[in-house]
């Protein structure tokens, strides 16, 4: 694909494309997904130089700092922004890049790490460094931004109270959703970059309709008497999962994923994010699910919805940072009681 188009360079020179990959608050699965494009990775190596890829190659931040502004053609960033180091590096990469791709659901909407937005920093630290069963920390030593040791001061990045999606921090040209993005879409994006046929900035490289639109299952009228978790049911493989009482985020989620989960009898969890029409994925799904409950009696309705034990985690599983509320409110009457407590603890 690269041979016919000047190695993808816009000015017709032999300059290769300059790529960078970076990860923030993510699991590393997105980086693996890049390798999942299999032999196409060789095409990437043919058309592009990779300037940074922390998971696979040894480059230092200093290398990037020394580049001219706008030197990088495309930078792929996966993960949400969780701490001050990530904040700094994404800002740096933004200055050095012509285009930035928010790669994967975490960069697009916060992803799984953003579910921790329902807890404050203090609560997360308490759990991770003190009360979790595999931790012994009787002195309650928590990460702090600065620590004084005999040799001098040591510093750590500040852990934020929230996970931010990438475009809260820097402008983003393209969004490639998915947990992780499927190889076909990555291949499509790379091909578009190589041939200089990218969609207009701001585009989401995925479908434009809801997953239901491309879902192969049979659909009828939805009337739900009982919600079931996936482990409680052996769903029929032909019929709409929602009709069987299994919460499937298909109605509010973009297609383009190839219905990978649906095809193995698992419901959609919404990793492709809201459809272009949905203002907000979670509340749209909440409204849709609730309105098909088959009851007019308040007590019965409450009993039926009690089978959805974690609405926020279910409906905002991948896009919490893209929601209206974004995080749990912890402060009381205008004061930051919790914050003060935390400062005292430091």
């Amino acid at each position, binding site marked *: 694909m690269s041979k016919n188009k000047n190695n993808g360079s816009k000015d017709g020179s032999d300059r290769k494309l300059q790529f960078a990959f970076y990860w923030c608050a993510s699991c590393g699965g997105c980086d693996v997904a890049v390798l999942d494009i299999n032999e196409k990775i060789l095409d990437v190596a043919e058309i592009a130089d990779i300037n940074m890829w922390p998971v696979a190659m040894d480059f230092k*931040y200093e290398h990037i*700092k020394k580049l001219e502004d706008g030197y990088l053609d495309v930078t792929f960033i996966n993960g949400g922004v969780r701490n*001050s*180091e990530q*904040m*700094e*590096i994404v*800002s*740096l990469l933004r*200055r050095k890049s012509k285009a930035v791709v928010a790669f994967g659901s975490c960069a697009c909407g916060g992803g799984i790490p953003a579910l921790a937005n*329902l807890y404050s920093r203090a609560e997360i630290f308490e759990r991770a460094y003190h009360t979790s069963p595999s931790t012994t920390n009787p002195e309650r030593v928590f990460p702090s931004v600065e620590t004084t040791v005999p040799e001098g001061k*040591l*510093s*750590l*990045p*500040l852990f*934020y*109270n*929230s996970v*931010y999606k990438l*475009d*809260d*921090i820097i*402008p983003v040209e393209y969004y490639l959703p998915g947990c992780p993005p499927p190889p076909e879409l990555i291949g499509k994006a790379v091909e578009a970059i190589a041939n200089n046929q990218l969609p207009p900035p701001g585009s989401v490289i995925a479908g434009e309709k809801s997953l239901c639109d491309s879902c192969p299952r049979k659909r009828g009228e939805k009337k739900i008497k009982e919600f079931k978790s996936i482990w409680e049911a052996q769903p029929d493989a032909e019929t709409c999962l929602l009709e069987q009482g299994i919460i499937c985020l298909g109605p509010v989620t973009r297609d383009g994923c190839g219905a990978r989960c649906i095809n193995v009898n698992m419901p959609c969890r919404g990793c492709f994010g809201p459809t272009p029409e949905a*203002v*907000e994925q*979670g*509340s*749209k799904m*909440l*409204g849709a*699910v*609730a*309105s098909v*409950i088959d009851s*007019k009696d*308040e007590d019965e*309705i409450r009993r039926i*919805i009690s089978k*959805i034990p*974690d*609405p*926020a*985690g279910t*409906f905002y599983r991948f896009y919490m940072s893209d*929601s*209206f*509320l*974004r*995080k*749990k*409110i*912890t*402060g*009381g*009457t*205008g*004061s*930051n009681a919790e*914050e003060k407590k935390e400062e005292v603890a430091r």
Partner: protein
Amino acid sequence: MNKNIEERVNSGSYEPKIIGFLCNWCSYTGADLAGTARIKYPANLKIVRVMCSGRMEPAMVLKAFAEGADGVLVGGCHPGDCHYMEGNYKALRRAPLLEALLEQFGIDRRRFRLEWISASEGSRLADIVKEMVNEIKQLGPLQIKKENFETDGLVLNPATGKLENPAASTAEGKGGAEVV
């Protein structure tokens, strides 16, 4: 600003903002009746007329809170009286799930109410608003915007709409604090 609110709460002059999504056929007409009958109710309620309580999307309630409302009231026709037959039942089904969601986000259940108010119940509307205002005064203001990023030391640049770290931009003009 934070201090101001605290002072206002302490001095009792804090007035909560309540957004009311009232259905055209019953609750809005009820509010109208309250007006023509000169029934007094607190001015804290800002009414948005919707065609049906079933039109109330959960997103509208969440957005109201996110934009600074301290409480949200949804008013519809009594069950069985809906102008569109089933609309208020849709609201009835959404409300408990929405309440559970709000609670997870740290928003007290008492800040959101779904009430059936018919066109003849102007005084009932006034009573509900009075009750809600009193309850929310006890709860104090919701400060969602502030909580969202100010606790991380970030500021919103209104020109770009992006969050910035003011401490970092002064550090040697490098756009970021040095990270070890």
